[in-house]
């Protein structure tokens, strides 16, 4: 068995409208990985996922799922794959239980086993109490959970989630994060696309960035973040100031009278900054990033790639 859950080589897609969505992407995802597939709107993420899931027909290239060439044995490859689409894709008039049980049936799981698996999956995702409700009566968050339940019912080894937390409140989002971490820890390889970069930073080990149909980065999250030259921090101070303190080599501005905005270069020490502030009688009560680190890096990379 290959050590790769997914191997994409020279993947190209041109739509009938002559829009070139993918210009030859190469990407490998190791078994057990939790990969963030990022990119601005229209970058080619959904086309890539669509091709892997057989919802989009590729123009050229190869896709292998756990070493199975999708051109040669797509049914076998599909058995390894679970996909949570961006848009709701179930019959809203069916009951939750029926939707998941039917999906299991499409994977060849006999009805008796399908019902048992559905019960386990729905309980795991907190949907068991809703099993007899029509899907249309569910809230947005529960519909998202139902999408995940459907994708997991055949216990795929590779799970692809296309913006699974879009429009989901923060509490539910964090619950979903815990759930995804858990299934990844249990061995499921996960590929996640999201516009919440904080989410990608929190969850993912590796990152791939697509822009204008090309893969512009594929590396570990740690490596990418380490390339950030300057990070901005907001420091809340106890006493108000009229002017920002002057500390050599540090670029400090006042956000308001009790908040300092400090730009820290890669080679600068936070300890040194705190010592200097302390020497000037300034006590810091709390600190936070001005913006998400990955977000800064992402914007930087995408802007560099502008045509």
């Amino acid at each position: 068995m290959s050590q790769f859950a997914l191997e994409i080589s020279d993947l190209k897609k041109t739509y009938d409208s002559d829009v070139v969505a993918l210009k030859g992407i190469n990407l490998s995802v190791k078994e057990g990985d939790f990969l963030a597939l990022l990119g601005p709107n229209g970058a080619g993420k959904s086309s890539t996922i669509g091709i892997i899931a057989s919802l989009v027909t590729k123009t050229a290239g190869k896709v292998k799922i756990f070493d199975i060439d999708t051109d040669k044995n797509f049914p076998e490859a599909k058995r390894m794959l679970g996909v949570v689409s961006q848009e709701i894709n179930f019959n809203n008039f069916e009951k939750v239980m029926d939707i998941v049980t039917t999906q299991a049936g499409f994977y060849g799981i006999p009805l008796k086993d399908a019902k048992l698996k559905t019960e386990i999956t729905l309980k795991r995702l907190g949907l068991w109490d809703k099993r007899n409700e029509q899907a249309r009566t569910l809230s947005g968050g529960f519909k998202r959970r139902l999408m995940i339940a459907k994708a997991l019912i055949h216990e795929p080894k590779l799970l692809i989630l296309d913006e699974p937390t879009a429009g989901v409140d923060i509490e539910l989002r964090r619950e979903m994060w815990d759930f995804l971490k858990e299934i990844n820890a249990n061995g499921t390889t996960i590929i996640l696309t999201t516009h919440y970069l904080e989410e990608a930073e929190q969850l993912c080990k590796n990152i791939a960035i697509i822009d204008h149909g090309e893969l512009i980065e594929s590396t570990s999250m740690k490596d990418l973040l380490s390339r950030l030259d300057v990070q901005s921090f907001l420091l809340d101070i106890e006493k108000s100031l009229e002017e920002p303190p002057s500390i050599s080599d540090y670029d400090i501005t006042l956000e308001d009278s009790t908040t300092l905005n400090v730009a820290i270069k890669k080679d600068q020490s936070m300890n040194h900054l705190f010592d200097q502030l302390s020497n000037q009688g300034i006590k810091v009560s709390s600190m936070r990033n001005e913006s998400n680190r990955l977000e800064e890096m992402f914007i930087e990379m995408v802007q560099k790639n502008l045509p």
Partner: protein
Amino acid sequence: MKRRNEILVSLITLIRKEIKRYLRIWVQTLVPPAVTMSLYFVIFGSLIGPRIGTMDGLDYIQFMIPGLIMMSVITNSYANVVSSFYSVKFQKSIEELLISPMPNWAILLGFVMGGVSRGVIIGCIVFCVSLFFYPSFTIVNPLLTLTVLFLTTILFSLMGFINAIFADSFDDISIIPTFVLTPLIYLGGVFYSINILPDIWRNISMANPMLYVVNTFREGMLGVSDVSIPFALSMIVFFIILLGSLCLYLLHKGTGIRQ
């Protein structure tokens, strides 16, 4: 063997889902043909029929029964598949099938079997309704009757499937039933024998495929027909093979379902 069993389970799942779908909305799917056909039997059979007299040597209401059953069977098997498949496209729940390992032929067969089962149930309902108006009705050739019934439901389910593949809106799924199927059925010998038509119209009628379906079914039920039965049966089978192959080709290409 394992793969074969998995495909069988997935096929049964899809057929079960399709049957549950139209049974869940039975007021919209099973009741209307019974009501409409009752009205046909009352008006054309009991009220106007006696004034018409006989058709091909049979009571008019008796002559009409196979035609009306076929009319309901054709429209319902077609409507079932076209509306169901277009709905799954519209709701994007087609992705559930496309993402799964189900082969294209099993997807096609699942939808077609949904249409066949609804067509057969409707055929039985209309036949039962007809017995209220003509209790002494007996089927001359049950084997031919059932064969034509199944073949017809398969043929029109396949047509519905093709319509749904190309449909981009709900308007598109009603155009062909309204402007093509219904006129052809009405002019296809449901209410009359083409022997009563002038030569020119009789010859034109021979080009109507519905005429063959209706008359073969009438041959099975009553033993009378305006067309050659072996020719009609072979044409039905030929078109089933042709349309079935076309459906598989379209599914393979992803027409209307894959980008």
